[in-house]
């Protein structure tokens, strides 16, 4: 078990290293950040060269990357070009809103998907099943940026129930969380239904039926427990996707999280900041995957830790 976890940990470090190399490499293609900083002013060539040295941009790529990696391990991801503050400080302020949004979206997804999935599987091919499947199907097909815009149109512009943007009031969270939660809700509901149907058809459930256990006990004691495994997996996968979906959702709702920050950093061509955001999001997503893998191993003793 310990060996398995440490192997997964090592793998996570490899992944993070790879991601940061790719992003840092892409930044090389992005042109000259110095030109951006000094563009609107009247800087001289000497001032530009000086700034280039200050930012360490005169060194070869490998050194630039190693500088970054050394700093990042100690929590220092350099200085933002456009904010002139430490990248770690800026992204630090944005972690909580993003986690709050994606956490709520995930919670919402589970709260809706689990009953929908169970009801669907317990009464296959009834109207309940049909409605549940239709909801899941719709959730899977509608692009979330469009859904977000339509929700704003209906619930904030027309009905004025919720604010259309920002994070100022308590109910600001509702529309973005619904927007972001719909896709994972759909996925979880579908997986839960499929795996429940599979489990309900399995031998031990049939035995339970024949022993005369009530439908509810069979469902809760045997089926749901066994069906949870694939659901946990999909939740882990979806969490990474949620962080990605947050980019679009936060942009639509001006939610001050990492996704919104990344789009702003791109607009401003703030290369170090963008690298910081991507690194942090990759870290969060790797961490979640690791947690899910470990959880999975704990839940399912059949897994070999190799």
């Amino acid at each position, binding site marked *: 078990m310990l060996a398995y976890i440490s192997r997964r940990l090592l793998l996570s470090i490899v992944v993070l290293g790879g991601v940061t190399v790719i992003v840092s490499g892409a930044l090389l293609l992005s042109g000259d950040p110095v030109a951006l900083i000094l*563009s609107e002013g009247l800087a001289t060539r000497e001032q530009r060269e000086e700034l280039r040295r200050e930012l360490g941009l005169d060194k070869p790529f490998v050194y630039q990357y190693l500088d970054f990696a050394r700093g990042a391990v100690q929590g220092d991801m350099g200085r933002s070009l456009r904010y002139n503050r430490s990248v770690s400080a800026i992204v630090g302020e944005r972690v909580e809103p993003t986690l709050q949004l994606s956490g709520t979206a995930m919670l919402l997804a589970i709260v809706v998907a689990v009953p929908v999935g169970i009801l669907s599987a317990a009464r296959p091919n009834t109207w309940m099943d049909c409605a549940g499947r239709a909801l899941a199907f719709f959730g899977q097909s509608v692009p979330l940026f469009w859904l977000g815009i339509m929700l704003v149109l209906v619930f904030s512009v027309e009905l004025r129930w919720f604010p259309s943007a920002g994070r100022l009031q308590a109910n600001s969270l509702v529309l973005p969380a619904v927007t972001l939660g719909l896709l994972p809700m759909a996925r979880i509901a579908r997986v839960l239904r499929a795996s429940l149907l599979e489990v309900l058809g399995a031998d031990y459930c049939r035995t339970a039926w024949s022993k005369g256990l009530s439908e509810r006990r069979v469902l809760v004691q045997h089926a749901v427990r066994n069906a949870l495994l694939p659901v946990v997996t999909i939740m882990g996968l979806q969490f990474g996707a949620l962080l990605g979906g947050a980019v679009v959702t936060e942009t639509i709702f001006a939610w001050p999280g990492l996704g919104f920050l990344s789009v702003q950093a791109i607009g401003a061509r703030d290369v170090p900041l963008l690298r910081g955001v991507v690194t942090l999001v990759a870290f969060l997503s790797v961490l979640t995957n690791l947690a899910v893998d470990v959880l999975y191993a704990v839940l399912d003793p059949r897994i070999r830790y190799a």
Partner: protein
Amino acid sequence: MKHTSSLLRVTGSALIALALLAPLGPSQAAPGGAAARVVLASEPRSLDPTIDTIKTSLVITHTILEALVLNKPDGGFQPHLAESWQAVDPLRWRVKLRRGVQFHNGEPFNADAVAYTVDAFLKTRGEARGWFSFVSGTQKVDPFTIDFVLSEANSNFPATLAFLYVFPPRYHAQAAAEFGTRPVGTGPYRFVEWTRGNQMRVAANPTYWGAKRPAIGEIQFRWAPDASARTALAATGEVDIAQNIPPAQIERIERSGVARIETARSLRRAFIRMNLGNGPTTDVRVRRAMNHAVDVDTIIRVLFRGRAYGRVAGFIYPGFEGYQGDKLQPYKYDPDLAKRLLAEAGYPNGFEITFWHTIGRYALDKESVEAIQGQLERVGVRARLQGMEAGAYFSRISSERVPGMNFAASAPLFMTPMYHPLIEFRNKLPYAYGANDVTTQFVKEAIAETNPAKRLRRLQNLERYIFEKHVPWIWLWDYQDIYAASNRINWKARSDEFLSFEDVSFR
């Protein structure tokens, strides 16, 4: 069906948990005195004016920090933290400072603070780096008199002081990079708090030195990049001032009953710059043809719904030294003339040209550019659009030569035409390639000229030369700045995109 109800219970309690997770709004009322609530289009990156020079950020910075001179709402400037100034010789200006002014943290305002600030502006690696590159240093004469030593003669020097926002030396040095997150100045408002992404609050400075005390107890700033969201906030009375209302949304504000529209003719003027060094646009006949091919009036009528001023002529803004735009004859929309001119220049079938532009930086920028592309196509000019986010756009136009043409909406850097970004006074901005040897010479002479009458003549000659002979741009329109203001306040818009809070009062 029994398990349905238990599932409902689970769902219910989870929803309650969800509600508990929600953020607690920090929107308490202002302590003592009503609060004005303002929504701007973008959140500042920093309140340090050496770092963030975007107007929507300066709107807030300006309430906390003050500069040596103050721009007037309708052009021109007046003494502020500086009481007077005079040129001792062409390279040395003596500035007398106001006495008895204190920073919010108790530090005194004096020559040392100004010297420190000039140093900070010269050393910054933020956006304002280079803005004072014509200053080589300062010398303190006495605690309230300071000399600015210039590296070249500059009769516009006093106007540039409108951007020299003074820092408190001790606090600025100690806060370092974090100064921009909790600034201290001499202004009518003190910084209170900034919850990133949510809002910023500033409160009236009870010991403000000015004759006019701040009229409102507190200002709350928030941000909404989406124009419909800003409109909605104003239309529901959730904010008192909303910036950049799109023309199409004006009716919504007017129908709301709680807010009204306030407008001002902006100092921002739209142009298209053409490449003078390469390609078909090196021929002045082609550049004239391009001017005749664009139907500015229709664009203003349809896209701006009449909310823009055009068609403009010349580059000097109304109210500025040398303005004679009302005497120049704007280019007329005449596609047939355009075709003839193109044929004369050897392009009877038109040509292809790259067209760079911003997306979402200026009102209706993408839409106007696409409309212009459609109009150019009718005379045979096929424009290949390359739209960019503002950051990418400025990065590229300042580091590369624009291959064909680019859309530019520029406002003067300082309240003087010589700092027009498109002709830039020493031709150092790489994108100021509307300039040629003739304009550079004109500007150089005008800047060095101290006799006002001669300066005026030089500027007028420059204007005529650029508009009639040189034709480096396609002249378009001046913007109208459109704000929504709630009916509970008195407030007027001004032309330089700043918000005058000193004149706000509650009805």
